């Protein structure tokens, strides 16, 4: 075989994957940074260089800080629904009869295969103030109904619920995988040594031994959650009412494709990206410090 081909061959095999990633992921990143220094509406052939003006404007705008605040809300909400809840569910699945666990795994995972758009439509109906199931159940419990999508406070909850419903299953499975990777001998040994309660098992054995998976899900719950809630927001509230549901991701879309301020949009995108990156870097560092526990 041609010696030169053999040298080039490994790279040739990688190229079909690498090239699209370079062209459509990495290069755009660079371009985004470039655009963030411009004032431009995407069509004019003369973009204006403005240096850090976009960033300054951004940090000075109320709109920006409002979406930051909202983003914070979403982060906390998703930590509960996409980190804590799936973890408890996964742990629960390992504690119940195995006959049911296969069923639970499928049933809890099913919504994940649906699109966020479908989830949005579904929750549009479920949260309808008049005939929606949720308000009906609330009234059965004696609580007043809520105008979910038009209420400035509850609208965030509405879109978050839609996104959480769809994303729950995936995190559930990932956490379950991490849980099942812990050798059964360890929990049996703990049992023999006198460990009775599930919470004890969780705290002393399970959580320390799946800390890697936990941190991964922690970070992705926030990052993926915030990006995903874009769809219900775009479909159902348009960022409203009165910007109540907007977040950083939606802001980028608004600036870019509704107001055509590409520079500002890119600046927002970069800022958001840096925030996410920080989270991810912290995750990597924390995981490095806690050494790998599996042999």
């Amino acid at each position: 075989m041609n010696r030169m081909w053999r040298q080039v061959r490994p790279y040739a095999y990688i190229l079909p994957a690498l090239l699209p990633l370079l062209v459509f992921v990495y290069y755009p990143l660079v371009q985004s940074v470039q655009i963030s220094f411009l004032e431009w509406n995407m069509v004019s052939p003369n973009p204006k260089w403005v240096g850090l003006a976009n960033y300054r404007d951004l940090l000075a705008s109320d709109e920006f800080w409002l979406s930051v605040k909202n983003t914070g809300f979403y982060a906390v909400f998703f930590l509960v629904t996409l980190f804590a809840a799936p973890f408890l569910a996964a742990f629960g699945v390992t504690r119940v009869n195995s006959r049911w666990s296969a069923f639970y795994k499928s049933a809890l995972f099913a919504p994940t295969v649906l699109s966020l758009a479908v989830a949005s439509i579904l929750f549009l109906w479920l949260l309808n103030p008049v005939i929606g199931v949720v308000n009906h159940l609330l009234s059965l419990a004696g609580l007043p109904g809520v105008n979910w999508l038009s209420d400035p406070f509850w609208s965030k909850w509405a879109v978050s619920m839609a996104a959480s419903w769809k994303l729950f299953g995936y995190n559930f499975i990932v956490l379950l995988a991490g849980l099942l990777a812990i050798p059964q001998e360890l929990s049996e040994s703990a049992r023999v040594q006198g460990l009775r309660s599930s919470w004890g098992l969780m705290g002393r054995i399970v959580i320390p031994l799946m800390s890697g998976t936990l941190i991964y899900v922690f970070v992705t719950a926030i990052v993926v959650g915030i990006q995903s809630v874009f769809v219900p927001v775009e479909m159902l509230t348009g960022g409203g009412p009165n910007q109540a549901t907007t977040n950083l991701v939606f802001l980028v879309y608004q600036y870019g494709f509704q107001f055509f301020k590409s520079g500002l949009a890119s600046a927002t995108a970069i800022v958001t990206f840096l925030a996410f990156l920080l989270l991810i870097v912290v995750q990597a560092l924390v995981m490095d410090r806690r050494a790998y526990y599996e042999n």
Partner: protein
Amino acid sequence: MQEPCDIRFSAVRKTFGAQTVIPSLDLEVRSGERLVLLGPSGCGKSTIMRLIAGLEQPVSGTIAMGGQIVNGLDASERNVSMVFQNYALYPHMTVFDNMAFSLKLRKVAKAEITRRIQEAAEKLELGSLLQRKPRELSGGQRQRVALGRAIVQQSSYFLLDEPLSNLDAQLRTNARNDLVELHKSYPRTMVYVTHDQVEAMTIGQRIAVLRQGELQQIGSPEDIYMRPANRFVAAFMGNPPMNIVPVTVGDQQVMFADGGELALPESVLSSLKRCGEQHVLLGIRPEALELWEGDRTVVKPFPPSIAIRGEFIRSEYLGAVVIHHIAVGQHRLLVSSAAPVQFKPHSNVTLTASCEHLHFFEAAGAEQRIPLTVQHLKPKNQPEQVLVMSGR
């Protein structure tokens, strides 16, 4: 140990789904003894151990420990110490914390915890390792930590599930001795699971041989070895394994399948006839056979013995012992002796064995042992004649 710490299984049955692992087991572990559960994989020995520990519950039957029925109690309520096959050390805790785990759960005072751990660490030579994590330890060290963890729990029952199987062969010999010594300093009721008969013989005060969930025989190592209760136990114990040959009981002799005959003392024959079976299995251990060159017809009359003609095939030199392969008709018999021989292949040889070392088993069903009476000579009696026929 003041109170009795025995374990009693009464008609215990265990199934996993459709599979019956233990049909009905009656077993008694005496207080303070070292009992070994021995058998091939799948024989249920680990299941029995898990039933004792409380990791599994029996489907029916009762398990009593120290006189109390423990059927409903989960493992966390039984106060049993267990050493797992893969040690099950908590990877995220130091050796000290691993050993302290059960004590912390039981709210033992800190000073006492430290004292017990120090004591055990000294005995097991773990003193310098207390702050290390399991992944920094060698296999032998991990095993000792697992032992130490079990010791400090100070429970009356000590369960070990093949704890030596992951050690190198060399370590294993020392570890075996250490375990026996350990038991002498901490005389708890010890149940030990293994598939290795050498381990069983050296460690167990009594051995329970198991097969497919059924107890084949329980007794001291000597009992098991010298008086195996059935063919399975006889063949399982001993390396190289016992020679077993199917024979038919005749009037004056037993016959091999290919027509050869073997004369036996009258007392032996009458025992065989008494049991009623026509087809039986003859068993002789390789070390019970003596190997002579050529045809040897003059045999010592006392004690009564047999002689078998055969053809030499080859020897395996193992250093301390030599194993000879001898063809007798269509059977292959093994003889072990201390000295190598220089026979030529296909030369004629004679095997002799004292009748005390003959075992007979029924050829069907459970292949139970057929009890023999081998009469020893009193000076006045006539020596029984021994006739020789080769199995050719």
